């Protein structure tokens, strides 16, 4: 006999974390459809592994990453992989104040090298520690910290004039 997670707990957890998880899923895939598929499958797997309780975020991010890699390796997704890298959906919520600097910053994040962008995303919007990111990505913690610093340096160099 099987059961499902409590509806209220499930919905509250989605409200709190779905946006940041979708952001990471979008960065790990090439199309919006793939991002949605990966996110849903990762949520189901993570909750099952957590015995129906809210799973820890590092586990969910790790599962998203693994499923995105598996999806990219799939032969049936070869055609999808050949599509342009630019995702169809925006990664960040448009700044309601219309600050140009924030929009430029969001665009600059997209231009970062993928390893730096991944660490930045997991650290800033995922809320993970360097060690958790290291565990999730299979990268030494020192390398993770370096990538984070490189990402900030690159962004800071780009926006020196704006943030001065």
């Amino acid at each position, binding site marked *: 006999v099987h059961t*499902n997670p409590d509806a209220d707990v499930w919905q509250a957890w989605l409200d709190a974390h779905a946006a940041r998880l979708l952001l990471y899923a979008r960065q790990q895939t090439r199309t919006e459809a793939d991002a949605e598929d990966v996110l*849903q499958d990762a949520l189901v797997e993570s909750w099952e592994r957590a015995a129906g309780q809210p799973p820890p975020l590092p586990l969910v991010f790790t599962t998203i990453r693994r499923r995105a890699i598996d999806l990219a390796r799939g032969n049936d997704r070869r055609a999808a992989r050949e599509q342009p890298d630019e995702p169809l959906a925006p990664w960040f919520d448009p700044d309601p104040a219309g600050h140009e600097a924030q929009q430029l910053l969001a665009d600059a994040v997209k231009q970062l090298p993928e390893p730096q962008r991944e660490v930045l995303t997991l650290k800033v919007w995922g809320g993970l520690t360097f060690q958790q990111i290291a565990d999730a990505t299979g990268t030494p913690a020192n390398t993770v910290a370096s990538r984070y610093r490189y990402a900030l340096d690159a962004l800071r160099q780009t926006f020196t004039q704006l*943030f001065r």
Partner: protein
Amino acid sequence: MNPPDDLEQRLRALAPAPVPGHLRRRLAGARHQVRVPAKPRHAPDGWLAAWRQWWWAPLSATALVAATLALRNIQPPASAPAAVRVFTAESADEFLLRAEPLELVWTESGQPFQLVRCTWIDRESYRAPVGDDRVQLYQARDEIVPVALRIF
């Protein structure tokens, strides 16, 4: 670790794009795909829980003891007496099959001996109580025999 600078604050001010409505509904429905083994609704504590879980154990042990005792009292059916013919020993002899010289040894007194390995065949004959039936049993036997030598 250094305190977050202005850039990190600006990054945190960037909010991830909200989940589209269709995906929110899809994810909400995905709850039903999560299959978790159901737990028992009520798990009483203490001896009552143990009793409910293991109530059959003493009954099984008692039944096992009773079955064992009952089986011990059941005698197997006596088998029909078989026809047995008892042969009685009639004679026994032996004959030398092989003699193999081994080595010479001397006692402390200076007497030499030749050690010989003798292989004997022991033969025993048995005779049936009725009739002329006989049974002969052959069995090999090794024996080291010291043969005294005479010095000239």
